[in-house]
């Protein structure tokens, strides 16, 4: 039998190849089909579409999916809960409320992105601050605080929707919540990508610490871990990653939940290789979903439909493979 690390390497290599293929397809497929020959020949329109639309879209698909998958791995490990996701501490509802406020009161895509980012961060900081009031520092306290903040943000979102103009604003809020990679301009992604890259690097460096946090609290303490402080730092960094992505794309369901599960079912461990594989699978999932979102129907569809549609069967397949020991 291959050693666990060798197996993880094999899966990661396969994931990288798949991701590269999907990225190439993503660059060429869409409402305006591109062809390699025309691009190389220097067709002006083709080049413009390539540089202004497809490039940014593909980059966000690959990098955003990678970021969501990796952050999902960290959340599940730190919360010791396979169903944990960024939603658990209020990121998505905070980001939605922020985006809605941006759509109502500010103008321009960049302003909405900034507003969504601020909303997500505000929600998480509020949840973590609330949980800090309980000195015992239990995981369940953070989850409860997250639920409280989530409901607060949902209420704020409802109020914002009530005041929204139903024709335009309400539609854009709903559309934002469903998530999409369309309309992301190459000029507006730099800051978010840089933030995600830095935070992801830190998360990978802290991988061993995240694993220590997966032990029971007293146990982790007796392994020399300053549980409260380390958990706060890791969660905040993972939050920054997710906020960086969803503020650009809107809510994307399932990637952060599914990619780490898929990775773990393949490698059967939680080493660094599995964390990397979570990211790669996340990238494949989001990139693949985005390709479908813009090619199956005449109109652009929300990407979350396809992340779930692609993700759920994949998860079911992996579970059955596990059961039958194939």
């Amino acid at each position: 039998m291959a050693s666990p690390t060798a197996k993880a390497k094999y899966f990661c290599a396969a994931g990288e190849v798949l991701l590269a293929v999907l990225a190439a397809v993503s660059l060429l497929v869409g409402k305006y089909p591109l062809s390699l020959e025309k691009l190389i020949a220097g067709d002006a329109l083709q080049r413009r579409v390539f540089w202004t639309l497809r490039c940014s879209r593909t980059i966000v698909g690959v990098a955003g999916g990678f970021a969501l998958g990796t952050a999902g791995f960290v959340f599940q490990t730190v919360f010791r809960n396979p169903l944990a996701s960024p939603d658990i501490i209020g990121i998505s509802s905070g980001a939605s409320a922020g985006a809605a406020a941006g759509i109502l009161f500010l103008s321009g895509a960049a302003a909405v992105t900034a507003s969504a980012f601020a909303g997500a961060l505000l929600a998480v900081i509020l949840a973590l601050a609330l949980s800090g009031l309980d000195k015992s520092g239990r995981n369940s306290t953070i989850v409860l605080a997250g639920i409280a903040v989530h409901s607060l943000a949902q209420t704020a979102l409802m109020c914002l929707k009530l005041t929204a103009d139903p024709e335009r604003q309400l539609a854009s809020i709903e559309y934002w919540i469903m998530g999409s990679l369309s309309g992301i301009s190459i000029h507006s992604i730099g800051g978010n990508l840089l933030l995600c890259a830095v935070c992801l690097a830190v998360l990978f460096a802290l991988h061993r610490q995240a694993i220590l946090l997966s032990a029971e609290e007293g146990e982790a303490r007796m392994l020399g871990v300053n549980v409260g402080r380390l958990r706060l730092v890791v969660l905040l960094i993972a939050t920054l990653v997710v906020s960086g992505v969803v503020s650009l794309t809107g809510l994307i369901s399932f990637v952060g939940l599914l990619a780490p599960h898929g990775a773990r079912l393949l490698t059967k461990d939680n080493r660094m290789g599995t964390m990397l594989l979570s990211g790669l699978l996340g990238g494949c999932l989001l990139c693949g979903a985005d390709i479908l979102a813009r090619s199956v129907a005449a109109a652009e569809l929300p990407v979350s439909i396809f992340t779930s549609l692609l993700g759920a069967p994949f998860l079911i397949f992996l579970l059955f493979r596990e059961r039958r020991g194939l």
Partner: protein
Amino acid sequence: MSFFSAQGISAGYGGNNIIKDISFTVEAGCLTGILGANGSGKTTLLKAVCGILPHSGACTLDGKKLEALSPRELARHCGYIPQRSGISIDISALDVVLMGFNPRLGLLEHPNSAMQSAARAALGQVGLAGMENTNYLHLSEGQKQLCILARTLAAGSSLLLLDEPESALDFQFRHRTLETLRGWLSEGERCGIVTLHDPTLALNFCDELLLLSGGVLTGCIRPGEDPLDKMKAMLETIYGNLSLLRCRSRSGQARLLMLKE
């Protein structure tokens, strides 16, 4: 001055003290057992000593006050084996043992090759050789317990706290665990405190037994020195009527045997 001393320890949950004003000492190289009925505060006492539970009173190990140490320093001196480890993710047995080196590693450092081989050796020491790559979650409860023991032994602390290490182990492994522990104690300046369910095991492997009842210390037994009658009378306060016998194993070693009347 004793190697380890606890002075006036009181602790509990939510403001109610479960253990009250407990003081005892442990000499270097010695294993102290804590006996008591369920709910008498055995686990609470261990958790208070290793600082997981807030408590009043003071613990001193080799001249250092444990309460004053940072979590990292405390973990370097003091190892704790809970009744059940809370590890719930897929992780290899070797990686579980390697967790024990965390107090000696920087935030971003990884265990070096010397630590890797020490971890393998520790797994061998507890009888889990060849299971390095086995998923910890697939081990039996007893093997999990042994794996955590290996982690604590490898970490090189000088005070070991074990909470019912024998509870999930079958007969053979119980003895093996306690023999491993005695071997570890004889290797340097260290001591151990262990709560045990099985009084016979405690009488034969511990240098001193503390009897805990309703959260207070009610007595202290030295199985090697105390007269049989005195020990019997004290044990009966916890376990009711019983017979205590001295006997010899086939190889001639003195043993104590406790039977319920």
